[in-house]
């Protein structure tokens, strides 16, 4: 196995991991773009989505059809959960100082994690996630498993769908307007409350999809499973420029590839250190992130 071949194999691993980070990072970045809130409960939505998929797949077995069904159920459940969280926890604080909403987000996160531990159907113990039997597609010497392909293809498709919604639909236009200037959008007759709820629903649905893909690639579900991917995706969103949708995608892929290449060629103990080191480096050079816009404070 030559160096080039090993490098290509690691790139495949990295892209697959990165696409999950990217999908999750989109939720952070959209919510931040609209209400300037870092939704720390986002990783836990991933967990809920994975469990939603888990129940569908456990009940109906694993076929391509049930997998799509699992994705749909997980995404719908989480979209509703996202709206409920927004309406009950964040909306009352919309005009409070930003730090209050941030602390509430941390509270929601802890509540969901530990609530899931107590609820009978989820419980504190890890469960095996039903997933496809591994099939390998060797391309030359590089080996790609069908799960890596599914993860990559589904993520990319969802990212295209999101980009289409944001850039080419009326709803997307309204979202961009609210993000740009909320009072002005309100005065123009946009239902701001509804748009904010929709944004949470969209972000949460993407998190649910990321959760099911994550659980398919790493077949284990437990209440704390969202913490680490959530953290990494948050870093990816900041890295790419928080508030920017292409930035979140780019950040996610950079994080996944940096992590994998560090593990593969330097040391697995340094993987997180180097991934987070990149973040610091980029923020020093470009404080708003790679694709972030430099907005000067309005006085």
């Amino acid at each position, binding site marked *: *196995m030559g160096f080039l071949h090993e490098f290509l194999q690691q790139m495949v691993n990295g892209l697959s991991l990165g696409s999950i980070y990217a999908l999750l990072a989109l939720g952070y970045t959209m919510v931040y773009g609209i209400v300037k809130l870092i939704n720390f409960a986002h990783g836990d939505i991933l967990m809920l989505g994975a469990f939603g998929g888990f129940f569908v797949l456990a009940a109906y077995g694993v076929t391509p059809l049930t997998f799509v069904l699992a994705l749909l159920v997980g995404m719908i459940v989480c979209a509703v959960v996202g709206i409920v969280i927004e309406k009950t926890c964040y909306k009352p604080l919309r005009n409070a100082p930003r730090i209050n909403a941030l602390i509430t987000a941390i509270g929601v996160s802890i509540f969901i994690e530990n609530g899931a531990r107590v609820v009978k159907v989820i419980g504190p113990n890890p469960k095996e996630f039903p997933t496809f039997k591994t099939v390998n597609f060797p391309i030359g010497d590089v080996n790609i498993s069908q799960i890596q392909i599914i993860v990559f293809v589904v993520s990319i498709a969802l990212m295209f769908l999101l980009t289409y919604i944001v850039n080419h639909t009326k709803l997307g236009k309204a979202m961009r307007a609210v993000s740009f200037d909320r009072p002005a959008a309100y005065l123009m007759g946009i239902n701001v409350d509804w748009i904010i709820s929709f944004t949470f629903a969209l972000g949460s649905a993407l998190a649910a999809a990321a959760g099911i893909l994550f659980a398919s690639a790493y*077949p284990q579900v437990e209440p704390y499973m969202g913490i680490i991917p959530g953290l990494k995706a948050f870093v990816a969103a900041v890295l790419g420029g928080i508030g920017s949708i292409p930035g979140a995608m780019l950040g996610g892929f950079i994080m996944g590839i940096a992590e994998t290449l560090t*593990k593969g060629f330097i040391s697995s103990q340094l993987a997180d250190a180097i991934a987070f080191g990149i973040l610091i480096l980029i923020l020093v050079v470009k404080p708003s992130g790679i694709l972030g816009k430099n907005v000067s404070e309005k006085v």
Partner: protein
Amino acid sequence: MLKNRLLLAGIILVLVFSLISGCNESKTIKIGTIQPISGQVSAYGIQTRDAIAMAIEEINANGGVLGKKLELIVEDDEASPEKTTNAFKKLTAKDKVVAIIGALTSKCTLAITKEAQAKKVVLITSSSTNDTVTDAGEFIFRACYNDSFQGQVNAKFAYETLKARRAAILYDITNDYSKGLMSNFKAKFEELGGQIVAIESYSTGDKDFNAQLTKIKASQPEVLFIPDYYSTISLIAKQVRGQGMTIPMMGGDGWDEITNNAGDEVIGCYYSNHYSPDSDDEDVKAFVTKFREKYNITPNALAALGYDAAYILADAIEKAGSLDPVKIQQAMMETDKKMVTGYIRFNEKRNPVKSAVMLKVVKGADGKLTTEYAGTVNP
């Protein structure tokens, strides 16, 4: 003034009650146990707890110890060392237990051995195999063999039975159990003349092992040794097969329960264990039957060890004739009895000297994964 008097009366009342309840408590002998009832290794903690409870019920039904009933106090540590320390403090300070069975994982037990030794609390862990667990002093015992033996068993099996000459290791660098097994396997395998072609590591909680496995695959091993617990193994196994590697994987007793927690990826893999529930041994048969009747499942090896640990401790208290920890400790050293997991006799390091069995994961007639006896290795 009246307020002060009321307060005083209240305090006296509380003191009197605590004295009375204190008297009541001495009617039983309190044994504490710290087990991971929830979290990553809950399948072990729950069964170990159930087995200890079953042993104590039997002992109480036969008249108890020193004419008193045993009372078991269970604490959950979620396999996290900080929680083990808290549980230990609660058991010793609040419940004032005579002795403790636990913790289950090596990492957790190591968090409390020094304190147990300093406070002179007799501590017997049913299943912490890390070599250094009993180093803290004469009050620390274990009911299982240790990792230098287990690592050697695996290395010998890989070299002699599987005829492997090139082995790779993937281990958890933040886990004492995993680290201990890794170094013992490596030393023995190299001593036998084999070659360790790759050693890769990860941290507890990692989910993605593709990068390490790509490296391991490039080194072309004939067998992959993964010393960790079943929940991580099932994740790793999936990715090993996803990378297109078909070599057999091996591990230690942390693989116990893998058949209920992994998919077909682990078929054809081997692990060392403390006992096989299919054994013809009379003690094993009796234990398995009783456990199945009571809890409706086949006990795993950890349950068998928990059951033995409870009996070792109860026998020692009876022999000591008092609750003085020093006397219990001396009586523990004199343990000499055939039990479920083998003949238990402690060496000078308070480790029992006993044999290990190798099990192979196979597909059973009912389509579910099960294990098959693959050999016994004596010390």
